[in-house]
């Protein structure tokens, strides 16, 4: 090192400069993340000092931050309906997607012939990168007319029947299926072949081998897939926003019809209403964004915790 420095001393400054530049770029990533939390976080709590009540914000159900439709003309910061909407569509879409995705991933890794794998791999990759607005458009021209015909009589409000949570759940299903499938495939592939061979050598059938040996060995990886699917579902915006089309949470919540009439969630309201709202109303949207940020952060932490516990990677 000493000798090297003496001989090539002239080239070292460039080397050191390059190193510092690279380090800066790596640190920029942390800076961006801190910036996201800092900027949105510092703006998130302002709405509570401007007349919003914390309890009403989370449990009230009338959302109108610009006060255009309230009787008094005062803004109404009650995001309970929005939060409920996000939770419901995320929960149901993940609930439906998970068995389908696991089935597909098992088929892909354990049963499918080579040539089919080679066909399916690019298909799943293309679908993972599907623009969300295109999926939303698909929902708008296929899923909604279909639901309208199926459940129109049940809801009975003609034109708008079909929009709502049900359509959003189906659209989200299309969005998160490829995500969960591809991460599940990685998790199943990480299980070494010896586990499968040992199970088969003990006389299990293929099905026993999958359910008793492969799936237990890949549990944490599969759980990570579901958590990341949830994270994607809760933040999905445009696809969901196109098929929700609601203003407020419907009055009657506990009927099946609630899934098939215009409804709300967090991201839809941000996408539709944020540009048209100014002042105090806009502050309410930073709070909603912060809620999404915290939820997605928790999901990432959970997925990291699960990944750290997995045996095979």
């Amino acid at each position, binding site marked *: 090192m000493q000798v090297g420095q003496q001989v090539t001393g002239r080239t070292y400054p460039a080397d050191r400069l390059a190193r510092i530049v690279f380090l800066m770029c790596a640190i920029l990533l942390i800076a961006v993340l801190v910036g996201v939390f800092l900027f949105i976080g510092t703006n998130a709590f302002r709405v509570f000092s401007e007349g919003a009540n914390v309890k009403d914000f989370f449990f009230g159900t009338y959302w109108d931050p610009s006060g255009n439709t309230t009787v008094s003309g005062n803004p109404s910061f009650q995001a309970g309906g929005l939060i409920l909407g996000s939770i419901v569509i995320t929960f149901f879409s993940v609930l439906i997607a998970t068995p389908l995705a696991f089935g597909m991933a098992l088929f892909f890794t354990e049963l499918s012939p080579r040539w089919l794998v080679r066909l399916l791999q690019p298909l799943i990759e293309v679908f993972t*990168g599907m623009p969300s607005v295109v999926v939303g458009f698909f929902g708008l021209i296929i899923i909604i007319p279909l639901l309208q015909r199926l459940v129109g009589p049940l809801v009975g409000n003609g034109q708008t029947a079909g929009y709502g949570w049900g359509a959003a759940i189906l659209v989200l299903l299309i969005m998160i299926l490829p995500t969960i499938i591809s991460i599940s495939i990685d998790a199943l592939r990480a299980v070494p072949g010896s586990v499968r061979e040992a199970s088969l050598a003990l006389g299990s059938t293929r099905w026993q081998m999958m359910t008793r040996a492969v799936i237990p060995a890949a549990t944490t990886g599969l759980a990570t897939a579901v958590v990341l699917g949830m994270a994607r579902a809760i933040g999905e915006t445009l696809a969901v926003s196109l098929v929700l089309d609601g203003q407020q949470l419907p009055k009657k919540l506990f009927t099946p019809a609630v899934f098939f009439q215009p409804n709300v969630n967090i991201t839809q309201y941000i996408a539709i209403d944020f540009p048209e709202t100014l002042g105090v109303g806009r502050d309410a949207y930073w709070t909603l964004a912060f809620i999404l940020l915290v939820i997605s952060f928790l999901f990432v932490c959970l997925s990291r915790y699960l990944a750290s516990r997995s045996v095979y990677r």
Partner: protein
Amino acid sequence: MSMQQTAQTSLAGSTRLAEQQRLVRRLKLGNAVGTGTLCGIGILVALLFVGIIVYLLLQGSAYLFLPEFYSTGPIGIRPEIYNTFYILILAEIISLPIALAAAIYLIEYARQGVFVTTIHFAAETLAGVPSIVLGLFGVLAFSIYAHLGTSRAAGALTLLCLNFPLALRLFEDALATVPREMREGGLALGATRWHMIRTVVIPSALPGIVTAVILTAGKIIGEAAALLFTMGLNNPSDVFTLSPFIASDTLTTHLYYVAGPGAGSTGLTTAQETAITAGSATLLIVLLLIINVAARGLGRAIQRRVTAA
């Protein structure tokens, strides 16, 4: 006595045999049902995917052959196509060097430890932040605090934040494929680290780097939520300029606006709106397919050139 015993054992044997046969039958049936269900699900999901892609390709394909579709007329989306590629190039110019530099630091310089773990954790967290939230962050950080307003520059910087984690991971993977011996060979010849990286690591990692660039391009072309508020939904009259300080819409945001909040209020007939939305959706799918094919083909082609040379 002994006869009786033999009869008993043979009886027990036959019941045991029958039991075993029942067990085997049950297991075989379970296996058949289980694998059958999996095959069913696999084929169903695959058909669903194929069906959606084929449907989206076909439903708007007629518009792709209309000259008016590429004009600046009522159903023309020439400004949106221009903006999409403009923002793609601008965002890649900003984000690729930064992401590549960060990846080089992590792979070539940093020791495994707290710093690398922190960066990876930050990258994962940032990748998990919903793009609409990043869009709002972009409004705060770039449009308001940096006084860029609703502009292409603000959009490109927001895309940097959105794309950074993905680009970093892909670049890291590309650099990690370069064998250790090549680095050691370079260093043993007396090259400095940076010289070695320039002349040894990056050329050998080129196929992976190109693939990474193409994949991030796909993400940028399909992105809309992060650009809604940072780049706006309207085009000024001087849309076909290189100025990064004007607002503009892209294929995705335009499709969203015409199909969603703007439907019925764009001043167009329903047929014209359908032309725009259906055509744009098909065009986006075509671009996506081209990008995927290119990501596979180009990386491999470069690898062949590099390894042959």
